[in-house]
């Protein structure tokens, strides 16, 4: 009987302590953390509708004008857009995210499609792929000393749009894998779709990748 009473007292004490702890936490939140830090804004003085309009105009000014390309690397989709309107959507393949290490040279490549803002820098018809070192390492082949052995006229399809640092929107031999993340960082598109993108996008067309 006495033992049972002790259990009750212990349980009540534990419950009371927890309740006190939670209450103390909420008091800290209420009295210590109550207000956001006072931060003077650049617009603190006489903010008016005009100031807001100026800021809105500044943001509008950095938005793209005309046609632009949006690439969703998660869904493997490429969108041709103008303003808020989507003109056309294409199924593509983006970077696999894999890592390749060159055990002999200590080099490392991450096969990821880069994110952010880019622009079409060049447009090529019947593009030639100059195979980089990783293409040979991945295949377990010796890196050739002869430049001509790097030339590959078959892999990139009929057109390519370069957007910097060796990345291209190009064709593919592996159309079955469109919609999956399988590339080395470039954006692969089916032949018919590639022609359409090539014709629509000019040099300087903005590309937004996420």
């Amino acid at each position: 009987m006495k033992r049972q009473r002790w259990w009750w007292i212990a349980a009540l004490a534990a419950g009371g302590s927890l309740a006190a702890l939670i209450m103390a936490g909420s008091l800290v939140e209420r009295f210590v953390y109550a207000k956001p830090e006072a931060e003077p804004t650049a617009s603190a003085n006489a903010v008016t509708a005009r100031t807001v309009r100026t800021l809105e105009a500044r943001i509008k000014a950095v938005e793209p004008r005309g046609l632009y390309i949006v690439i969703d690397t998660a869904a493997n989709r490429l969108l041709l857009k103008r303003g808020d309107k989507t003109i056309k959507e294409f199924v593509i393949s983006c970077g696999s995210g894999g890592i390749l290490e060159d055990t002999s040279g200590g080099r490392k490549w991450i096969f990821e499609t880069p994110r952010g803002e880019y622009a079409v820098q060049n447009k090529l018809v019947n593009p030639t792929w100059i195979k980089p070192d990783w293409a040979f390492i991945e295949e377990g082949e010796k890196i050739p000393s002869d430049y001509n052995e790097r030339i590959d006229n078959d892999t990139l399809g009929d057109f390519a749009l370069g957007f910097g640092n060796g990345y291209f929107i190009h064709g593919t031999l592996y159309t079955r894998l469109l919609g999956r993340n399988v590339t080395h960082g470039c954006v692969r598109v089916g032949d018919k779709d590639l022609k359409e993108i090539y014709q629509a996008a000019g040099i300087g067309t903005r590309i937004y990748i996420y």
Partner: protein
Amino acid sequence: MKKAAIAGILAAAAALAVAANGQDWDGKAKRLEEEFRLAKTSSVYLVVDAGAKTVSLRIRGLTLKTWPVSNIRSWGRPIGIKSLKVEKRTGWSAEDRVNLTPGRKPEKKRKDKKPKDIGDDVLEIDDMPAKYGFILETNARLDIRPRAKGLFNRSAYALGGLGRSIGRSVRLIWSVIKKREFSNIQVTVPTKKTAQEIFWAVPEGTGILFF
């Protein structure tokens, strides 16, 4: 006398309206200033809009994608209208990437595989975590989790509520003792896929704007 009283009420109402407007403009201007700071760079940024209950991914002021949010909760120091950079992400590390062995000839192998069988070979949206945190500057943290679904998961979540309350209280008290304030925002999204998509779209270094 009556006219004077009416005029007084009208003047007071006008003053209140002006004051209310002023406050609104101030908040809006602050939000736009913060957004412009992010929009003038060439990187994507995330916008957590507590009022509209949405999270959207933007670049150059352009909305790339918007996800709905089921619930937003915060504790610690309110962040207010501010943009913060993601310093670290929890729930996934770069070591989780697939290591490609030289000589494995993945392209040639994939050619013969069915598209559904290449999952182990590549990093895709399904490999992303659904429960994770973005560790931000100034001791702030944004936690993303999907809404608990099914009776078992909901019950477990409700039961865990007491544990979470105790944990939060300990953290709040400890932060005062250590004089190191923190901000924590928890965003609950409707589905696991939404949480995974947000994780995929927000790499380390991304700016997040809260308002």
